[in-house]
């Protein structure tokens, strides 16, 4: 269980994350939405150690991870993928996966053996299969399509076998059809891997369709949390973010 307690972060006078407390039960799927500048990415950066919170706690199974370094937090089981695919451009898909498993098995500093170590193979294979990257295993990451690069980024997070997976806009920069394919993949991963997934998404149709639980952020604060129906009918959310169109559709 991931518990966020009174998390806060300011940049100068701007409160990018303002006293946020949330629970993400094991195996839950949650969407985080909010207008641009609502502090969604900052929220992820605070949880994963890219930024140091000013105050508050990030509890994973009772262990406070707030303010620790990214490698430490990853090792505790919080993996993330990025809004702009963050990959290793000169490595092939397969090398990327094998090297990531090596990092997770703490053999990334081994000097006397040849890469890849045999014990890294099965996990790398498994995740490449999960994400449908097997046929592209020998492709250099830089030559992959945008969508495949996003998948590779998610694969990098997933291959570490995290307890919690944070996806920062998995569908960013994709066409409508590709978006649905990606989000189906995310849902499929969530169902098959039994992990906690939190994702940021802009497309309301997607969010309302697949997320059992939604968190709305606005100016660094939680504006509302709830099921798609609750969010649709929440007047504060409608005023601040959704506008009348969606509300009308719900009515």
């Amino acid at each position, binding site marked *: 269980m991931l518990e966020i307690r009174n998390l806060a972060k300011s940049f100068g006078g701007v409160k990018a994350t303002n006293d946020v407390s949330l629970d993400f039960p094991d195996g839950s799927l949650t969407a985080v939405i909010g207008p641009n500048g609502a502090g969604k990415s900052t929220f992820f950066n605070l949880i994963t150690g*890219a930024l140091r919170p000013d105050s508050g706690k990030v509890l994973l199974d009772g262990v406070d991870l707030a303010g620790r370094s990214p490698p430490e937090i*990853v090792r505790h089981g919080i993996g993330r993928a990025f809004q702009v695919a963050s990959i*290793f451009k000169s490595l*092939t898909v397969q090398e990327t996966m094998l090297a990531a498993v090596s990092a997770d098995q703490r053999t*990334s500093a081994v000097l006397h053996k*040849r890469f890849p170590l045999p014990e890294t193979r099965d996990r790398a294979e498994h995740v490449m299969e999960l994400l449908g990257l097997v046929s592209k295993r020998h492709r*250099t990451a830089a030559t992959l399509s945008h969508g495949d690069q996003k998948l590779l980024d998610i694969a*990098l997070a997933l291959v570490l076998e995290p307890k919690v997976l944070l996806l920062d806009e998995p569908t960013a920069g994709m066409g409508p059809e590709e978006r649905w394919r990606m989000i189906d993949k995310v849902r499929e991963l969530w169902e098959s891997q039994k992990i906690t997934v939190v994702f940021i998404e802009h497309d309301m149709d997607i969010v309302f369709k697949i997320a059992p639980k939604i968190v709305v952020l606005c100016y660094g604060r939680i504006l509302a949390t709830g099921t798609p129906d609750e969010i649709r009918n929440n007047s504060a959310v409608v005023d601040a973010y959704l506008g009348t169109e969606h509300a009308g559709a719900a009515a």
Partner: protein
Amino acid sequence: MTELEAGRAQTLVPQRGGAALQRYRDVLIALIAFAVLASLPLFTGSKALLDFVIRCSAYGLFATSLNLLVGYTGLTSFGHGMFFGLGAYSFGLIMQKLGVPIPIAFVATLAITAIVAAIIGAICVRLKEIYFAFVTLAFQMLIHSTILSWASFTGGDQGLRGGIPRPAFLGINLANHVHLYIASCALLILGLLAMRQIAQSPFGYTLRMIRDNAARASFLGIDVWRAKLTVFVLAALFAAMGGMVMALFVSGAYPEFAYWTISGEAIFINMLGGVSTFLGPMVGTVLLLLLNDTVTRFTEYHGIVLGVVILFFALGLRKGLLDFVAEWYAHRRETGEGR
């Protein structure tokens, strides 16, 4: 790029034994290369040719070690030559002052280099790109001026004179030209083999990840600072090995060995040969030394000629020689696969 090519070659061999097979192949190539080099004195009495190979060994070790930083990790050091100079001076001083057997001086020099590199590295590797380049350069200048000003110990601008004693050990007499030649070749081949192992180990792939995207590497649980420091020290050790070969060859050590131009030469070598393949710097070494030797014979303005050649590679081709070979090979393979 390179790894594209290296990765492909790896997956062509059967999956399970692939990595081990590649290692045997490297050892085999090394043995053949050593056999060829070692048998050279049997066919030629040319002292100049053997001298050329010894110099190639010294510079080759040095330049290849720089490629571990530049090509594999993306750390562009402008001060790598300090470890070349440090190796030459430490070795020369230990032999002159203590008169210990050569292998002991060799190991002691590596130990000293490791300590110095760890201290300098700890300060430098946190810095980003241009700052890293300039602070390493600053340390190089510091070591160079220490050598110049501490004249009572280092001989100042005269260098370590009076020759480095080279007592025989285990039947090897490095005062003998052929023995020195064979020993240099052996050090070169062993050094290259060790660096190749580093490049192809899990750690070598960690370095590639850091080069491509250090932030992402840390989100995979990799301690980027530690990995950078480790490779900084390892590269320094091989640079010091090159310096020791040089000290043995000229039987002395001179401040130029620690001057910033020696770092510049290593960077030129890497540009000439290319940083995307393991052997690029070795090819670059042979090219630069050949150029140096031939051009100085024809004109005293050899600096201008070398400068033009380097500009041609840097601005015109934007790649080293072996980069082209690797690309051509990868391209050929790709079209072959397409059939």
